[in-house]
C-alpha cells in the first residue's frame, strides 16, 4: 500500500451485512471520495474501486490488473491452492485465451439463439405450474429451476440431477460467506478445503460429478458441451488439462445456474415492488429488452471481483503498488449516478426500446473476463418476461426474502410470490 485513504464506516466485506441487502448508502459514500478508498480486510486490505469509470478502467486493463495472481476473491490463496482451483476466472492471457476459446463457441449470440425454443419450453412449464399452484416460493419454483435446467441441457447432464446440483451450488454460496453449514468431510470429501473452490466440500462433490460425466462421454461422445470439453482434454494438442476440465465443469454448472437464478430472483422482487413499471412493459412490449437490462443492473448477481496490480500504477489519481489488491465493486458501479440517472430507481424503460448494448456491469466491467454466459442469461430473462406478459400476470410478494450471507453473490434463498392478474 502506498497511501492510506482509509475511510471510516461500515465494512462492506462483512457477509452478514448482505442479509439486509447491498449496503448502497455505504457504497455511495465510497464513490464520493477523491481517488480510491483503502479498505481494511483481514490482516491487510484492498483498494475499493466503486465508481463506474474506475471499474471499467481496471476491468479493461488486464496487463496492469491481473486475474492470475493471488486470487480473484478477496483472500489470497497459497500457490498450490491457486493451481488446483485455477479456472477461466483465475487466468490471464494466454491461458485465459486458450480456455475461453474452448467454450466461447457455445455462447456466441448466434449459437445462444438456437436454444430459444428449449428455454421457452422450460419457462412455460415452470410458469404454468407456478400459476396453477397460485404461487409459492419464487426461487424454488422459477428462479432456480429455469437456469439450471437450461445449462444442464447444454452440457448434456441429466436434468433429473438439477435439484442435487442446485443444492451443491447453495453450499458453494455459503462457502463465499463465513458460515458453512456442512462439515469438511461432507460428500465423502478428503481434500483439504483450501484446495477446493469456495473452500467448500461441495466443490469436491461437483468435481466428482464432473469426473463421472467425463468418463461417460469419453466412451460414448454426444453432441453436447461436456463431450466437446472431454474431446479437448483428451486430444493430442494439450488444449486442456484434467485439472482445467474439472474446474471448467465446476464453473459452468455453478455460474450457469447461480447467477441467473439471482437475476430472476431480484427481477421478481423488483416487479412485485414496482407494479407500475411492469405495467409499462405490458403496455409497450418493445420495452422487454430494456426491462431485461434493468433487471440485470438491479440484480448485479456478482457483487465484486478482485484483481492484483502487476506493477506500480494509479487509478483515479491514487497510487497503487505492485501486488496491491484492487476490488471492483459492480454492485456500486451499477448505482453510479454519473452513468445512471436516478440510479436507485428501478426504471424499466431506462435503456430504451430494443436496446441490447447497455452499459451496466452485471456481466463485469468489460475486458476479456466479460461473462461467458451473458447472452444466455439475457435470453432466459427475456423469455421469462415475454411469457409473463403473454399471460398478463404480475407478481405479488407474500413473504420477506431470505438473502444469502455472502459479500460475493447477491443471492436470494427464498421469497414467496403469487401471480396477480394485471389486466
Amino acid at each position, binding site marked *: 500500500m502506498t497511501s492510506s485513504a482509509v475511510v471510516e464506516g461500515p465494512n462492506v466485506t462483512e457477509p452478514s451485512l448482505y442479509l439486509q441487502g447491498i449496503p448502497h448508502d455505504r457504497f455511495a459514500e465510497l464513490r464520493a471520495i477523491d481517488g480510491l478508498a483503502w479498505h481494511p480486510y483481514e490482516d491487510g486490505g484492498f483498494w475499493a474501486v466503486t465508481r463506474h469509470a474506475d471499474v471499467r478502467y481496471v476491468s479493461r486493463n488486464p496487463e496492469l490488473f491481473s486475474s492470475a495472481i493471488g486470487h480473484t476473491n478477496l483472500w489470497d490463496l497459497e500457490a498450490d491452492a491457486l493451481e488446483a482451483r485455477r479456472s477461466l476466472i483465475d487466468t490471464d492471457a494466454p491461458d485465459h485465451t486458450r480456455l475461453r476459446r474452448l467454450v466461447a463457441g457455445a455462447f*456466441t449470440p448466434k449459437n445462444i439463439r438456437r436454444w430459444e425454443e428449449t428455454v421457452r419450453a422450460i419457462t412455460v412449464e415452470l410458469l404454468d405450474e407456478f400459476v396453477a399452484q397460485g404461487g409459492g416460493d419464487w426461487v424454488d419454483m422459477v428462479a432456480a429451476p429455469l437456469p439450471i435446467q437450461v445449462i444442464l441441457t447444454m452440457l448434456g447432464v441429466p436434468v433429473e440431477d438439477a435439484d442435487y446440483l442446485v443444492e451443491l451450488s447453495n453450499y458453494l454460496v455459503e462457502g463465499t460467506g463465513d458460515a458453512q453449514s456442512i462439515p469438511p468431510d461432507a460428500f465423502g470429501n478428503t481434500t483439504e478445503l483450501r484446495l477446493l473452490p469456495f473452500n467448500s466440500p461441495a466443490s469436491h462433490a461437483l468435481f466428482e460429478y464432473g469426473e463421472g460425466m467425463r468418463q461417460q462421454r469419453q466412451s460414448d461422445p454426444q453432441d453436447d458441451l461436456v463431450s466437446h470439453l472431454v474431446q479437448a482434454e483428451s486430444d493430442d494438442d494439450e488444449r486442456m488439462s484434467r485439472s482445467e476440465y474439472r474446474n471448467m465443469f465446476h464453473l459452468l454448472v455453478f455460474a450457469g445456474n447461480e447467477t441467473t437464478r439471482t437475476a430472476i430472483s431480484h427481477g421478481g422482487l423488483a416487479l412485485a415492488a414496482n407494479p407500475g413499471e411492469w405495467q409499462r412493459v405490458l403496455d409497450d412490449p418493445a420495452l422487454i429488452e430494456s426491462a431485461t437490462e434493468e433487471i440485470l443492473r438491479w440484480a448485479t448477481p456478482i457483487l465484486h471481483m478482485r484483481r492484483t496490480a502487476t506493477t506500480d500504477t494509479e487509478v483515479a489519481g491514487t497510487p497503487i503498488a505492485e501486488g496491491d489488491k484492487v476490488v471492483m465493486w459492480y454492485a456500486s458501479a451499477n448505482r453510479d449516478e454519473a452513468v445512471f440517472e436516478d440510479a436507485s430507481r428501478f426504471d424499466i424503460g431506462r435503456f430504451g426500446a430494443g436496446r441490447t448494448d447497455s452499459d451496466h456491469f452485471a456481466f463485469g466491467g468489460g475486458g476479456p473476463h466479460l461473462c461467458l454466459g451473458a447472452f444466455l442469461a439475457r435470453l432466459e430473462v427475456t423469455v421469462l418476461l415475454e411469457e409473463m406478459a403473454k399471460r398478463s400476470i404480475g407478481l405479488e410478494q407474500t413473504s420477506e426474502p431470505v438473502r444469502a450471507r455472502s459479500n460475493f453473490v447477491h443471492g436470494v434463498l427464498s421469497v414467496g410470490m403469487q401471480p396477480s392478474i394485471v389486466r
Partner: protein
Amino acid sequence: MAMVRVAVDQELCIGGGICEMLEPEVFELDDDIVIASVIGDGLLPRNRADVVVDRCPSRAISVVEQEQ
C-alpha cells in the same frame, strides 16, 4: 459521417461475439474456431466503429484506415 475501415487481430480475439451482435454486416464469427473476421469491405461510420472498438472484450478490433 466519415466512413472508416476496421480490422480484427485474430491473435487477440476470444470469440465474445459482441462485434457480430452489434455489426452483423461487418463481422462474422467462424463456427469452428470461434474467431471473428471482417466480411465484405469492413467499412463502418466512425461513430459505430468507435462503439464496436470500445465494446470488444479483448481489444481485438481497430480502425485501420480513414476513408477519404
